[in-house]
């Protein structure tokens, strides 16, 4: 149990350090790499939550697809030498920090003040089959709507990219 705890602490620290890198790095490439580290940390936490299917989906979709998409966008948006500074004024940083800290402490107060149901330490025994059953029995309509949304998003992205070039 000591080793499991140590690895869990390591994963949590990795997630938080990745998030801090994402928002504080000067270069946008480092910000993207910090996002990748955070996503891997979240996948590790999913494994600790007994949800290995979600962890694999996290690595496939977020690390494999979305971060590559962001990398393409970084490469397409201008050369590295003309990249603008990522940092803004100190005033805006303080404002952002105040807003984030306010949100953080409000939610922390809610979390600490709420009583969770008993029996919450029982292990989660849901397999991939159960996820599929829930997805296709109970949540059929949202599933189809999500697929429709993704098709519309892909077609929309292609249309935006194509027709703007033509009209120029």
């Amino acid at each position, binding site marked *: *149990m000591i080793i*499991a705890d140590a690895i*869990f*602490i390591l994963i*949590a620290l990795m*997630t*938080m350090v990745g*998030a801090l890198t994402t*928002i504080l790095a000067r270069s*946008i490439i480092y*910000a993207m790499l910090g996002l990748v580290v955070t996503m891997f940390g*979240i996948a590790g*936490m*999913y494994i600790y*939550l*007994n*949800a290995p299917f*979600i962890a694999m989906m*996290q690595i496939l*979709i*977020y690390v494999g*697809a*979305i971060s590559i*998409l*962001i990398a*393409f*966008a970084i490469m397409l*948006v*201008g050369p590295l030498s003309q*990249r603008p500074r*990522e*940092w*803004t004024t100190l005033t805006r940083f303080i404002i*952002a920090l105040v*807003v*984030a800290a306010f*949100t*953080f402490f409000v939610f922390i107060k809610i*979390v*600490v003040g709420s009583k*969770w*149901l008993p029996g919450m*330490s029982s292990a*989660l*025994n*849901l397999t991939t089959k*159960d*996820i599929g*059953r*829930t*997805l296709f029995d*109970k949540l059929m309509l949202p599933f189809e709507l*999500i697929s429709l949304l993704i098709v519309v*998003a*892909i077609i*929309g*992205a292609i249309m*935006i*990219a194509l027709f*703007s070039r033509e009209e120029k």
Partner: protein
Amino acid sequence: MSEMSLYNNINIYLFVGLFLLACGIVGVLYRRTLVSMLISIELIMNGAGLNLVVFNRFVAPERAYGMAFTLFIMGIAAAEAAIALAIIILIFRRFKNVESDELKEMKD
């Protein structure tokens, strides 16, 4: 013994999710370029997905609703990233920069 373990404590997971939310808010308000803001929004979505799986595991472990909604969040994040990046590339083509402070006009 397993109840004393650190990874069976709901508060730690919720703390990590909240930390991701706070970092995402700071990034959206503080970063200058549009791509960085998009990266910060991805942070927020990761935190939301973690929260859903945590509540599924600790509060309602009978059904897999939380995991299914995490999969939905991943799909919505993919669609949102595709559309946002197309718009960012369009903006770059027209205005030659992607700084949010410089984008004042919507139509030329």
